[in-house]
């Protein structure tokens, strides 16, 4: 039993983190206009993030597991990478399971861009990262789908998160391309783990932003991080981040090994990560005081992305229902 990343895993993560830090600083979102993915796209495919877990026999396939992928998605979360990166990774899985090699190649090469579709209570689907999306991937605990984007109605409008566009469809998101049952591909669990990993990265980035500000901002002649009222908020952020990160690693391992309690662990990871990310990004705004409510301060970008990712594949209430229903070992 070991829950710490190995040196090899740390190398994989470091390579992604280096690219993200240099090419995709969160500051870019100050000028975002609903199509962050569109602006970044041609280069993102080259990073290998779309096909990390596909076998090496597939062109671009990384031959890695969901544990490594989750560790990388934590970094993607930290830099608020476009949700379409997750869409590509999930879409390539569905196309692979449905034995559509041409479709896999189009997704992995970045030729076809995959937005995310989330089922709504009224039977409609909410589409995410719609700008220039060619395909949509969606799932329930029982099944996963890939659709070709239906041009009519899927244009989308800018969301609360200025990097992303959303659309609401009354029926399906487009023309069906593939459907795969969960017994062949437990996409819901995979998605929950990767979303939880991104949310954990967001929580950690927000925590780091708060700690950096609290260490330098002076009031009453000293850094505000020396006051317990501020320090304890930061400590609570650290605890929430540690809980979320530990749970993401545990859930990724459970899903990788198809453990009996994999669905429980995956839903728990998303629940705990949503709580950590909401709590941390809200408190980070507070720690920044007046600066925290300006567009220039990065804190709000984190909070807005948390609300977006929470809704993907079923929000907090849906996760709670799954956690309570789930069988555990």
């Amino acid at each position, binding site marked *: *039993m*070991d*829950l*710490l*990343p*190995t*040196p090899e*895993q740390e190398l994989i993560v470091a390579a992604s983190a280096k690219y993200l830090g240099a090419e995709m600083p969160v500051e870019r979102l100050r000028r975002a206009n609903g199509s962050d993915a569109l602006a970044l796209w041609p280069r993102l495919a080259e990073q290998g993030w779309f096909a990390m877990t596909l076998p090496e026999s597939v062109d671009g396939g990384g031959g890695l597991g969901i*544990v490594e992928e989750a560790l990388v998605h934590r970094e993607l979360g930290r830099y608020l990478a476009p949700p379409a990166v997750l869409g590509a990774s999930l879409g390539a899985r569905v196309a692979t399971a449905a034995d559509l090699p041409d479709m896999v190649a189009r997704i992995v090469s970045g030729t076809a861009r995959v937005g995310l579709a989330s089922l709504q209570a009224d039977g409609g689907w909410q589409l995410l990262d719609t700008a220039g999306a060619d395909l949509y991937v969606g799932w329930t605990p029982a099944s996963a789908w890939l659709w070709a984007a239906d041009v009519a109605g899927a244009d989308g409008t800018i969301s609360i998160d200025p990097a992303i566009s959303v659309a609401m469809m009354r029926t399906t998101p487009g023309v069906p391309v593939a459907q795969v049952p969960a017994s062949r591909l437990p996409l819901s669990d995979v998605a929950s783990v990767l979303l939880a990993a991104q949310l954990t990265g967001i929580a950690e980035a927000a*925590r780091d932003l708060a*700690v950096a500000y*609290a*260490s330098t901002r002076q009031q009453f002649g*000293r*850094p505000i*991080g*020396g*006051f*317990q009222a501020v*320090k*304890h908020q*930061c*400590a*609570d952020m*650290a*605890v929430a981040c*540690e*809980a*979320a*990160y*530990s*749970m993401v*690693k*545990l*859930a990724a*391992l*459970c899903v990788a*090994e198809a*453990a009996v309690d994999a669905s*429980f*662990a995956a*839903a*728990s*990871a998303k*629940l*705990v990560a949503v*709580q950590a990310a909401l709590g941390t990004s809200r408190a980070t705004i507070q720690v920044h005081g007046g600066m925290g409510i300006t567009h220039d301060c990065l804190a709000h970008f984190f909070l807005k992305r948390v609300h977006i990712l929470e809704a993907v594949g079923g929000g907090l*209430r849906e*996760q*709670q*229902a799954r*956690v*309570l229903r789930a069988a555990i070992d």
Partner: protein
Amino acid sequence: MDGERREARLRSWWPMNLHFSPDEDAFRDQVRTWLRENVPKEPPPMPGIESRAYDVEWQRRQFDAGWGGISWPREYGGCGFSLTQQLIWHEEYARADGPFMGVNFVGLSHAGPTLILRGSEEQKRFHLPKILRADEIWCQGFSEPGAGSDLASLRTRADIDGDHLVVNGQKIWTSYADTAQSQELLVRTDAAAVKHKGISWVICDMASPGITVRPIKSISGGAHFCEVFYDDVRIPISNVVGGLNNGWSIAMSTLAFERGTAFMAEQVMLARRIERLIGLAGDIKAPDGRRPAILDDEFARRLATVRAECAALRAMTLASVSRNARQELPGPEGSMVRLYFALLVQRVGALAMDMLGAPALAYDPQPHAWSHQYFYEFAQTIGGGTSEIQRNIIGERVLGLPKSA
């Protein structure tokens, strides 16, 4: 130690995984079988004379079968188990509904490990075997009425008189002082030194003339806390552990131990308690009197949340075990697990009270009663460092924020 270090280095190259080795699986089978056949069938009695006999008898049975000191090194009569083996033991112990170690807690988890780390050979030889066999019950004399979170401001004085210390003062929150034979006692031996420097850690014989013990009744109805008064109590200087005026660093090594591994068993017991509560929610009615409580929206959401959080607590525990397997002393990260556990266990208690409603209001002295646990768990954010102190540790030593005024 060399072997352990080598093992730790090798481990760091293993892939991240949830598997136990074949040896560890065999160990788990062995532990599970022994516990199933030996854990006392009758629940522990209420704290008092009977519970002391119960705790002592259970510790002896474990010791005689070779399970005497799970975390202790073999050279001092312990089991010499790796952290992973300790984790397995605690998981199986909780699964078998093993009783809390009760009066043996301070000896096995505080005083013993401190003597192992800092005691003289003579002190170790005399006390350690007695602790393992429960021939000697220990209590802790750290806190004072004026020295709680600010422990280093303690004022219980020890004056040197020949080859003895003469102790005067008062301790408080001393668990099991009314039944213990020995006490780990912090006293001020140099009043002129700055506050952390003039403290000594001494072994106090609780039968010494001049000691008065007064139990304190707690909010859960139990009374294992005591006040202890010292009136010219004479203690041989040879009972000082780690040299005069070194007591602060010695006390800190004990507290680091408490923040390190003590939560392993608590985590598994909490998971079982939550599963019992979920089961109960299917049996009792929601406030509307029609549906089971588990179909009530609010209770369902709160039950799901604590269930997921308890899974995260387990993940944090596994991460902490993995981390501690690579370092000699537990780091400040232990405070994060401690704080998360304490707040979670209190939320579970509050949820049980809300869910049970009126029936929970009848006084039930059984330690397993939901109302008893609800009140008892208030101590979790106070004892062993309040949650405010834990947050200071996390803020300063994990996040690197400036020290508080």
